[in-house]
């Protein structure tokens, strides 16, 4: 797009009038979050792509019903999550979510906080090991809240849980994580964070 990037509200209004270019720009802005959210739900990249694409198509059709002025993100996430859950159900398989970290440091676009730089690689390894020991439900709620940085309300929508259950499940997941960490010996060698 040329010139000043359009505000989201302007894009929404244009898309409501049938402007697929404007809608494509909306998709561009949310596609990473939508895809990753679908991935957390389905555990499969292919299913996540299909779910996210279909969700955006359905959202376009539903756009005339979207109330202008409300935040688009939770509305989109709800549609993405519904589609991802349906795919997971219809696939008839329960793909566990596998959490991996990149060998590389985060990109500039995903710049870590100053604190992030301090997280020692051996601690990351221990943390990943401990996450790997958790139940899949625990991994998903942790992924939503801490890795995707969703709010409690958004996490509830994505996982199709009451908000109170998100809170209690998260608390239990963190407790189990601490327990797993307590029983994991810190690595004595240098970083092996590519596991």
């Amino acid at each position, binding site marked *: 797009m040329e010139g000043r990037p359009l505000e989201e509200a302007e894009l929404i209004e244009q898309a409501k009038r049938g402007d697929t270019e404007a809608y494509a720009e909306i998709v561009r802005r949310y596609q990473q979050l939508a895809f990753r959210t679908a991935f957390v739900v389905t555990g499969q990249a292919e299913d996540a792509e299909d779910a996210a694409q279909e969700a955006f198509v359905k959202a376009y059709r539903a756009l005339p019903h979207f*109330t202008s002025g409300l935040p688009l993100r939770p509305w989109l996430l709800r549609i993405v999550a519904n589609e991802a859950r349906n795919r997971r159900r219809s696939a008839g398989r329960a793909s566990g979510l596998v959490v991996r970290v990149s060998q590389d440091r985060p990109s500039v676009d995903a710049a*870590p906080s100053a604190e992030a730089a301090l*997280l020692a690689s051996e*601690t990351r390894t221990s943390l990943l090991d401990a996450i790997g020991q958790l139940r899949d439900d625990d991994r998903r709620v942790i992924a939503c809240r801490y*890795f995707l*940085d969703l709010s409690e309300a958004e996490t509830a929508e994505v996982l199709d849980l009451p908000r109170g259950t998100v809170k209690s499940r998260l608390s239990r997941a963190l407790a189990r994580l601490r327990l797993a960490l307590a029983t994991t010996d810190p690595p004595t060698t240098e970083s092996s964070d590519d596991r």
Partner: protein
Amino acid sequence: MTDNRRLHDESSVESALRELAPTIAYPPTPDLATSVRAALTDREALRPPRFRWRLFRRSSLAAVVALVLLAGAALAVGFGLRGLSIVFVDTPPPGASEELRLGEPVTLAEAQAEAPFRILLPTMSKPDEVYADSRSGIHQVTLVYRSPAGDEVDLLVTQFLARPELDAAVKQVGPGTSVEAVIVGDQEGFWIAGEPHVLTYVDPRGSVIEDRIRLVGDVLVWQAGDLTLRLEGAGSKEAAVQIAESIE
């Protein structure tokens, strides 16, 4: 430098998880903007029909009746058939548009392949269009019968399994709407007629899903085995029951 012992209280673990977030390796994000735009262009010709019935106007009045399909027994204070209860609520939903929300256009064969139930069909003729929709968590199939000229929707038959874990569909109607118990074959049903009413869905937690609204006209709702069926557009209770009894 952090170490394992640092992570034995909740806030430290939370901090460590947040620090881990930027390093999480996801599969590469596909170019959805391009694929979605292409899909929208391809499907434009298959957009769902729109109702043009004048009756379907926005209702702004307060008292409403909600039909809650399924479990909702704790909420039910009035009528009820198996898997269907009628409850009274105080607050009407926000406005609705006139567009039908039928889901994805599919062939009858595709709909049957995807549906977790045998699709029941009226004996009168094959549907002009078929739609499938799983947005609410309920797999729903809608048969569309068009007017002879093809420019308007004459009849809609929607069916879905009343799944016990869902609180299910809610139908809210404005004042002046009558709800009458009827018999369809040997099954109980309800004929809801009068003012416009709104079809919404609630999720398993009982909260209303945001993309829920469409207005419908007089409607017959009944059950056939595990299926709940809804018939709209028949014009009269008698015609609706007659059509419903021909569905098999």
